């Protein structure tokens, strides 16, 4: 009996072991089945709230700046200067914005500057940094920005308003100043005429999305300029500023009229537009021929010369446009344009551009940099050709 019992026990254990292995096989079969099937990531069913979607698609509100913050008319001790100096200093104050703001925030300017120039640097690109020479000039430039502040704790908005107000109130006295004063409205008027000429030649319908977008952009531009001039209602504008305001208002009225249909783009309109385009180019050319302001020349030259490549003997339009801006600058240097190493252009070339900086530009004048570094010796033949044209037609000093 005992033997039979042991035999039975043995059989039971055996069957249990067999069953165990069969079970393992069954489980492994499931594993292999799943491993040969493409696994999908299970979709997590989460409840998504409408609020989170609305938050994502609502445009972000830009910070509204109080452009008169800190400005005190009683403490405004900005010196009276001529219009051209007022313009040059105002322009420099605007370029010093982040430096003065860094003083206001008790922060170092250099890290903020690096943030600005690396704003569009991709993650896999090495962030830009200034070399030792560039840092030296950066330091000098930061010090020059500090000179605009009346006190160590003056806010940027106050500095900006003092120089802005002076620019819009200063009246032109000399011919140079008057030429400069005329150039800015000429430039805006030309840009507006060119905009209409380029965009309205086939008429206007509200269905043309691209054209509507362009018109809206132009409208915002005119509105922006008007609101910028009118930040401070305490300013007594000069006559030229009032004329400028009227011009922008006219532009806005015309754009609104085109959109609402009160101004019809018919054949008469287009004929007048074409004649206006031609006569404006002639007017610009005649103005520049008697102009003695270098800033006026630099403002209007790009508008007048950018499409004149073939007339100047250059078939390669892109090449012509790339060198013409530098050549116009060299011509302006022969007038009264600031061309030393502290000029806007040389600061940009040395360290300030987010696209391209050249250490060899640091400490050099515009003439020195262009003739000895930027242009190749062979390119000077092209430079000479264009400069001769400019001197023959537009030199008045």
């Amino acid at each position, binding site marked *: 009996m005992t033997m039979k019992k042991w035999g039975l026990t043995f059989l039971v254990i055996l069957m249990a072991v067999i069953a165990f292995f069969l079970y*393992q096989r069954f489980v492994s*079969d499931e*594993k292999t089945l799943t491993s040969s099937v493409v696994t999908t990531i299970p979709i997590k069913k989460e409840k998504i709230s409408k609020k989170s979607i609305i938050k994502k698609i609502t445009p972000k509100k830009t910070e509204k700046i109080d452009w008169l913050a800190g400005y005190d008319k009683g403490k405004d001790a900005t010196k009276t200067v001529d219009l051209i100096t007022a313009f040059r200093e105002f322009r420099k104050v605007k370029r010093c914005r982040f430096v003065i703001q860094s003083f206001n925030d008790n922060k170092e300017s250099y890290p903020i500057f690096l943030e600005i120039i690396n704003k569009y640097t991709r993650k896999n690109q090495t962030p830009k940094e200034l070399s030792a020479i560039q840092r030296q000039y950066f330091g000098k430039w930061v010090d020059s920005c500090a000179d605009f502040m009346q006190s160590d704790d003056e806010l940027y908005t106050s500095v900006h308003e003092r120089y802005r107000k002076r620019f819009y109130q200063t009246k032109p006295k000399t011919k140079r100043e008057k030429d400069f004063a005329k150039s800015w409205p000429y430039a805006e008027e030309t840009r507006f005429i060119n905009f209409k000429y380029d965009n309205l030649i086939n008429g206007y319908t509200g269905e043309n999305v691209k054209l509507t977008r362009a018109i809206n952009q132009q409208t915002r531009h005119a509105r922006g300029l008007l609101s910028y001039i009118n930040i401070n209602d305490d300013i007594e504008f000069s006559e030229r500023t009032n004329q400028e305001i009227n011009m922008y208002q006219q532009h806005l009225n015309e754009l609104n009229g085109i959109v609402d249909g009160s101004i019809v783009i018919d054949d008469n309109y287009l004929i007048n537009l074409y004649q206006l385009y031609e006569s404006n180019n002639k007017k610009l050319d005649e103005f520049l021929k008697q102009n003695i302001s270098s800033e006026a020349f630099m403002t209007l030259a790009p508008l007048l010369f950018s499409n004149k490549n073939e007339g100047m003997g250059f*078939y*390669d339009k892109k090449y012509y446009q790339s060198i013409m801006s530098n050549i116009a600058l060299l011509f302006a240097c022969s007038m009264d344009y600031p061309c030393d190493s502290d000029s806007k252009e040389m600061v940009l070339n040395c360290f300030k551009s987010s696209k391209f900086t050249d250490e060899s*530009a640091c400490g050099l004048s515009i003439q020195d940099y262009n003739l000895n570094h930027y242009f*190749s010796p*062979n390119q000077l033949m092209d430079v000479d050709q264009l400069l001769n044209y400019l001197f023959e037609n537009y030199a008045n000093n």
Partner: protein
Amino acid sequence: MQTTKYKIIGLILLVIVIVFSLRQNQVPKVEENIRPVKQQEKEFNTATTVIIKQAQKSKKEQKEEPNSTYIYSEDPIVENHIISLKYSVCQTYFIFQNSPYLNFKSLYNSKIQHDYFNKASANCEKLNKDHPEYLLNINYKERITLMQSKTATSKIGQMLEFYKKPINTIVSNQEIEELYGILGNEYPELISYPFIAGMKYEVDTIIPDLKELLFTTNTQYVAKITNLSRMYLSCQLNNDCTMGSSTMMSLCLIETNFCVASFDELFNERLSQGVQADVLLALPYFKRLYQVE
């Protein structure tokens, strides 16, 4: 005795079960193509089937006439690139013919460029008929599929397929210089081709060398002179630089004043004095780089 028999039988059964289970525990290979092969074949359209048949035919021909299956290079990748470059105008022509949405006018507004393209593509139908092996009339997707089925058999071919390599693959300067030597002597059509593998060498070596040679710090100007010098050199090495060539068409699309009959005419009559002089100044540098004299 009987018990022992049972024990033995039981043990044998146990061993069999264990062995069987162990084999089943091995994870089988995951099949790469889940869909059956026949279904994939159905997705190719007839044009691709023709290509495959032609390829098979050419393999047959290869057994009979080993030298007749390629025109420019034994390496199929290089062969395809050269044909694509040489006949890019016709390839573009057929893309426009076969697409209801694309046409030249929709891409380029200038009438001069439009007329130039029409003149340049006037013989494309005849060329396609006379040389079906150029595969001018296949669309971009089919061309990519065809290229992916080929393997590079030469260094140049491998360089042309550099985009397939991991992103941080480095090519030594020596290899690049060797590549340029081969291009200059065997494939002048590819001198102006932008090799991804050569980009680092371009930025680290060629551009700084040329800045020093031309005495300028203007990187964009140096890049312009580099492109023009390469074109000049490849035209000198008998690459097609007449109207209808990809060189002239690409220049015409950049500037309408460059839509002329030949590179020679463009160089002598459409470039400024300064640019001409700098291209000629840079030319010996590229001749040394591409090991041609």
